[in-house]
């Protein structure tokens, strides 16, 4: 039997197995934290930062991504503090012009973001990497990958793997924006 760890999430005492993340612990306690790049079947990635929460540890508070941060004994977590809400709103503002699609729109509604001050190009892809990671971790094919760095980062099919890719299409249903259909192209 695994060791149990108790922590406090939004004032609620939560006991979970050691090694779980804050996100998993919150889920068990019925507390919802928004996610975009997280998928329970894949390794934590920590890219979208929307699941950021505020933790208090040894008297010091900081922002961490709940999908990656492992639970610790005595940890105090606030999943919806003013600071957290502000960070999420800015992240939503960043993503909204890029991908005004279902998941982002509903987050915008939930967090009261009516208009974005950002001017990102509408590419639809939010670079959550679900497709890339599914292909690497589950299918073990690495047929799609990230290319470019920084502002030029995008998802592309590895040309040598295009045949394998065309046969699969399993990542289609993971894509939050539906852009993957354009990227793969069939």
């Amino acid at each position, binding site marked *: 039997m695994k060791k149990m760890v108790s922590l406090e999430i939004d004032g609620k005492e939560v006991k979970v197995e050691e090694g779980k993340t804050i996100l998993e612990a919150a889920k068990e306690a019925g507390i919802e934290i928004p996610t975009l790049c997280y998928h329970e079947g894949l390794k934590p990635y920590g890219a*979208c930062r929307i699941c*950021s929460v505020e933790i208090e540890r040894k008297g010091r508070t900081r922002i961490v991504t709940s999908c990656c941060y492992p639970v610790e004994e005595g940890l105090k977590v606030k999943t919806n503090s003013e600071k957290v809400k502000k960070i999420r709103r800015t992240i939503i503002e960043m993503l909204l012009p890029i991908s005004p699609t279902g998941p982002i729109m509903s987050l915008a509604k939930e967090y009261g973001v009516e208009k974005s001050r950002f001017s990102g190009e509408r590419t639809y892809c939010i*670079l959550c990497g679900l497709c890339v990671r599914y292909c690497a971790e589950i299918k073990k094919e690495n047929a799609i990958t990230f290319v470019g760095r920084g502002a030029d980062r995008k998802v592309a099919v590895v040309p040598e793997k295009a045949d394998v890719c065309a046969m699969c299409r399993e990542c289609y249903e993971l894509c939050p924006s539906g852009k993957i259909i354009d990227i793969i192209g069939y």
Partner: protein
Amino acid sequence: MVKRINSPEDLEKLRNEIIAKSKAEKHVVSVCMGTGCIALGADVMMDALEKEVEKHGLKGKVEIKKVGCVGFCEQGPIIIIYPEEICYLKVKPEDVPDIVSKTLVEGKIVERLVYTDPNTGEKIPKLGEIPFYKHQHRLLLANNGRIDPRSIEDYIAVGGYKALAKALFEMKPEEIIEEIKASNLRGRGGAGFPTGIKWETTRNAPGEPKYVIVNCDEGDPGAFMDRALMEGNPHSVLEGLIIGAYAIGAHEGFVYVREEYPMAAENISLAIKQAEEYGLLGENIMGSNFSFKVTVHRGAGAFVSGESSALMTAIEGKVGEPRPKYIHTAVQGIWNKPSCLNNVKTWACVPLIILRGAEWFRSIGTKGSSGTMIFSLVGKVNNTGLVEVPMGITLRDIIFKIGGGIRGGKKFKAVQTGGPSGGFIPEELLDTPVDFDELRKVGSMMGSGGMVVMDEDTCMVDAARYFVDFLLEESCGKCVPCREGLKELSRILNNICRGEGKEEDIQLIEDICETMSEASLCALGRTAVNPVLTSLKYFREEWDEHIKDKKCRAKVCKALINYYIDPELCQACTLCLRECPVGAIHGDKEHVHWIDQDKCIKCGTCYEVCRFGAVKKISGEPIPPPPKGMKPIRKRRE
């Protein structure tokens, strides 16, 4: 084939042999072969020197040594003649005959090659007395300039590998860690994490094998501290690494060298080979039970790979991208094994601490930050170069005492410490001591040791824009706040510099900076906001001028300046008129010139060529109308 060293006694014997052999030579001429000096022609001068020494039949009496960067790069190529420690600056091949015939043969000083104090006119021949060196405290760089980095014998002669012998034969691994902890050595890569604690974490972490890593992915613009150490004294880094490996219980190590540092990679590779031949690396080091091997890993040209988790991912053969480090790399690093990564300078501190003790190390510097730090002092300062100073020295002392103040008598405006994501520190904070915690308090950071001095001709909005654009280029693009935040910051800052800024931009900048600094995945994104925030905090009036008055007081932002010819000063020499690439200047030999603002592309050529100071740069004020008709020139009063 060299003889393997099988005990500390063997090492001492070898050391004595090397020293005895070198005593035959009267003079040692050290020629700086740092990258800067080579670029200035040191290699050509070196050839001339070798020929000249032979011509005078001095072979065997004079040893010519190719040494690593001695730091006073501004004045290269540099020659230092020992034992007198005579330092010759800006040496050209044609100076070589004088150096040989006067100094090496007659023992006289060649006055014209000696440092001249710009204020007093005094000639200072001795290296240690030149103000640039006098106020430094050289520990790590002490042997740059004295030893040939490509010779392990040179390193052994100055006491090299003595610390390793002490560590292996007189200390337990735990004792070494205690010593490092007691020394209060903090990570020289920038974050200042206590080195001893990091070592202990890796030592105690479950999992085998454990790895030790040297981070030489120095990517900050204008920074070359790590490079100078790796190129100039690679064995000191290697010795520190071996001691660390022994203390941590690692049997495999990596030296990560960025692709842009071919000489550093070459010199450390050679150092590894030499150490292996002598039995100072490899199986049963120095006859002990400890075995350790080191591999050099070349980077692939990504700035972000200097971040520890990205660097480790790169060593694994993947794209160098950071990953969340809530479980430290010291516990789960390369291939998820405990991996202890330290900066070049941190490793190089280790042999010194082992030999001279933690107490000695702690006696240098401040309570919170002990030891020395190497900075590359660059920008608008008189003496640029590598500067090693005790922690706690003020920025003012570095810039004005060692750096000799601002170039061209201009006024100081700001200094950026800590690389592209360091903050700009204004004049009123120049008495801030250089210390990990103090620099953080004023909104900047120690970083790896970059120090860029800016004068009154620097626009602080433009400077922030420059570093944002640099970091945008270098961000890996994995996490949203860093990628999208930098993209937007770049857009806004470029707009402001173009005179298209809006008042509400400031609020958006602040919101982006808050989210980036709190929620970015790695330190690149979290610290990228420092130049922007400190520029806003300390130079707010410049931002307001750009946005409201469309004025750039430093006259840097092209869109906000105009060139104009003062009719009272113009001598109608037609020089600017002829040089103007777009024919925007009107006038002739009899009449003063004027610039057609519609045609002018603001290239600044007229401003540079005018010998009478008649071409003016103006910003935020109305351009005086061109003279009515053609105004005849008013001859200068003789």
